[in-house]
């Protein structure tokens, strides 16, 4: 679906944002793009959607170079930016004028999503909606457009707690074999149990790219009341319930993936985790 090779990009002449960045993302998955603020997550999404052009390297999205902005490619991409546009239309009219651009748009799905988000008044002007409501509207529209690629930049920002859960449910149901959803966020807990592939950016590089099933095979996430002496702890965090730990999974024991712990472990122990995951074939870049 997305193939990025040797990508170079910078906003100013003095510093590189991306240098020699490589990444492959596949259809049929919900990829979580995680990283601290300013790592370049949004820029990467903009590059994938053809809004920003690389200085060097190649980007291929559905076998097309995104900078060409072919309508056939654009009608298969829905990009939800973090900052939403002010739209001078009612929800009903927005659907009326923008939906015809997307050949797989389903009005039925759209209204179902809006109902799930408790946004039922189609006559409401979009510029009267709050930031969170507007976000819910665009999420509903984006998922109902049934595009092959859905790019969501910080989609849970501004959503209330029930809506976050609703969003996770909707996104999980929307994923299909030929569809790829990329969610960029720094609020890693919001993606809990939603994403099945994790890409972590650090120092403007992709430092981790793994499917979740592979992560739990290789790493063990556990809570312990005593310090482990025998095992090498990749990351530990004190909590009221005890010490949350990430260790190498040598026994094949099953554990529940904690994205926040993983994220911190990767940032703290990047080299060791790279070694663990490079022990067997995977898609680590």
């Amino acid at each position: 679906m997305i193939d990025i090779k040797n990508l170079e990009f910078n906003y100013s002449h003095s510093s590189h944002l991306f240098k020699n960045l490589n990444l492959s993302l596949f259809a049929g998955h919900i990829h979580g793009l995680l990283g601290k603020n300013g790592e370049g997550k949004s820029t990467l999404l903009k590059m994938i959607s053809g809004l920003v052009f690389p200085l060097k390297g190649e980007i291929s999205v559905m076998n097309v170079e995104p900078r060409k902005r072919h309508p056939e490619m654009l009608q298969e991409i829905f990009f939800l930016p973090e900052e939403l546009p002010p739209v001078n239309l009612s929800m009903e009219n927005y659907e009326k004028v923008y939906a015809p651009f997307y050949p797989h748009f389903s009005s039925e799905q759209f209204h179902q999503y809006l109902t799930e988000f408790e946004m039922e008044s189609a006559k409401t002007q979009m510029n009267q909606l709050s930031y969170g409501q507007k976000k819910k509207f665009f999420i509903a529209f984006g998922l109902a457009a049934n595009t092959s690629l859905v790019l969501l930049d910080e989609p849970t920002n501004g959503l209330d707690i029930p809506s976050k859960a609703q969003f996770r449910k909707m996104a999980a149901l929307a994923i299909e074999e030929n569809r790829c959803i990329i969610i960029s966020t720094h609020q890693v807990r919001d993606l809990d149990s939603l994403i099945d592939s994790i890409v972590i950016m650090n120092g403007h590089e992709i430092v981790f790219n793994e499917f979740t099933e592979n992560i739990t095979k290789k790493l063990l996430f556990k809570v312990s009341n005593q310090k482990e002496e025998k095992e090498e702890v990749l990351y530990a965090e004190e909590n009221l319930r005890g010490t949350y730990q990430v260790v190498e999974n040598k026994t094949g024991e099953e554990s529940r993936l904690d994205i926040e712990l993983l994220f911190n472990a990767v940032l703290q122990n990047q080299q060791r985790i790279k070694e663990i995951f490079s022990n067997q074939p995977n898609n680590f870049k």
Partner: protein
Amino acid sequence: MYQTFSLKRIDLLLKIYFVENQNYEIYLWSILTLIFMFFKGEGTAQLITLIVGIVYATRFFKIFAYSSNGTHYLMIPATQVEKLITVFLLNTFYFFLMIIITSVIGNFIGTILRNLIYGISTPFSFQFFFPYSKLNSDFDITYLLKNFGVFATSQAIFTLGSLYFKRNSIAKTLLTLMMISILFGMIEYTVFKVTMGSLLSALNQYDGFQMAWDEIIFPKGMIFVWKIIGYLLIPFCWIVSYFRLTEKEIK
């Protein structure tokens, strides 16, 4: 194989514009109809067409002043050619057509009201874009076409300006035009200096502004070339606008 041009998409883009701007359109043309009820004739019509036209032309790419609007616009599944054709149709043909319609309606209502109020019987005549000396003559399309040419050039220049300058594009485009004029003035000054010794003697010898078009200084062929350049400016500005839009990034 990609479909590079689709009339259906242009139709959809036009629909977006009219649905999003229906209130703006209603207010604009109502106000202009009111204005044309009181004013008629070449000077006012030309001035209104040019000034309001420029403001109208620069509205379209104002969206790039804010990244969220720019992102939304660029992600609409249509080619840059289709997007630009839509803008061209709206800010050149549609606007000019609406100016004619509103001026006719405004002039018509104005004439009727004046006749009723003052008890006179001035006949209604189509005087839009007519020079003052020809106000009472019959309809002549050449005045209309001539004014359309000037208007289309102005729209093309200011549309390009709005794609180059993120904010205050009208002022910046005017400034750029001024700079270009100064540059041309300097070239002209140099030409006079070389050919006639000094600019002052040239001004004394010939009649002020007319001299540039005097065939003693510039042969007829040269004037023809200037006219051609004037007409070519329209496609030139739109082609450059196309490349500018194609290379537009949202950083």
